[in-house]
């Protein structure tokens, strides 16, 4: 594995998006992963539609009663992949733009599918495997505890204490070997995470969190998706 890796340098990541006041982070995470997978399978970077998931994806987890994707009220990346697989794929952002509002009618047009899911899987709770899957398969959809993200401005977040309860869906796009941590007086490796709160948040919309200890639960809900070429 390379010591540093960033899918942004390879053209697999679209610009930072903004979910607005809507609990649709799960759709941005899933769509980001599929955008990257589609890039790997076709060489073409296409911005895909989160609003399609918000409006049309009501997929439920078969094991958990009531755990269904429900637009601005939340959802899961794995069930979003399941929906995308069943529906046939996702449309382009331009063809089905984001409004940040739910309860709208589903306007999915199968003739305008831009990217399709071939399969998806979950990655083990092992940081070397997460890094290997990132490098091999593209950006990964991950869950995280976002408690420190409300006040985050920049740098590598590495809180001494952070809950493992996952409440936010984001996109893992890379990692770095080390950044200086002044209090700990050592270099710390970190993950590079794309968020969906616009470019005015964090480091131009991105978050860095330290690697090595499942900090804020970042290693515990990781999924990867593969795309097939459709257009």
């Amino acid at each position, binding site marked *: 594995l390379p010591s540093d890796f960033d899918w942004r340098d390879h053209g697999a990541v679209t610009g930072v998006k903004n979910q607005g006041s*809507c609990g649709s982070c799960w759709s941005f995470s899933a769509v980001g992963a599929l955008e990257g997978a589609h890039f790997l399978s076709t060489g073409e970077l296409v911005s895909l539609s989160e609003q399609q998931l918000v409006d049309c994806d009501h997929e439920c987890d078969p094991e958990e009663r009531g755990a269904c994707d429900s637009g601005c009220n939340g*959802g899961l990346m794995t069930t979003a992949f399941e929906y995308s697989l069943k529906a046939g794929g996702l449309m382009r952002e331009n063809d089905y733009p984001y409004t940040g509002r739910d309860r709208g009618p589903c306007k999915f047009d199968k003739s305008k599918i831009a990217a399709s899911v071939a399969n998806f*899987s979950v990655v083990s709770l092992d940081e070397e495997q997460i890094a290997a899957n990132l490098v091999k398969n593209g950006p990964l959809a991950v869950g995280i505890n976002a408690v420190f993200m409300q006040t985050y401005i920049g*740098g590598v977040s590495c809180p001494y204490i952070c809950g493992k309860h996952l409440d936010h869906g984001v996109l893992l796009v890379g990692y770095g070997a080390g950044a200086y941590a002044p209090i700990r007086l050592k270099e710390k490796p970190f993950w590079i995470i794309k968020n969906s709160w616009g470019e005015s*948040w964090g480091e131009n919309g991105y978050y860095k969190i330290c690697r090595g200890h499942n900090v804020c639960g970042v290693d515990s*809900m990781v999924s990867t998706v593969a795309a097939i070429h459709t257009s």
Partner: protein
Amino acid sequence: EDDLLIRQVVPDAEEHLLNAEHHFSAFKAKFGRTYATQEEHDHRFRIFKNNLLRAKSHQKLDPSAVHGVTKFSDLTPAEFRRQFLGLKPLLLPTDAQKAPILPTND
């Protein structure tokens, strides 16, 4: 005891938040915030001051990052969770296909 390089010389109490009103004015200007009533304004200012303290606490707990005023600084933690998070509280489904173990040497 907090920092090897900088010694704090002002008290910790909330009333000593330096220039909280100035910070709130700058926050409103930067993020285009307006409030419909004076009550709402005062309510948001109280939340903002609490969030300044939270940012300070986060800074102590997370010294390698920078924490401070963000566009979410006039929201309570509950409002922030409700409006800007949204991952269902569920672990990965047990029947999900597991990614094959990849070689990581060389």
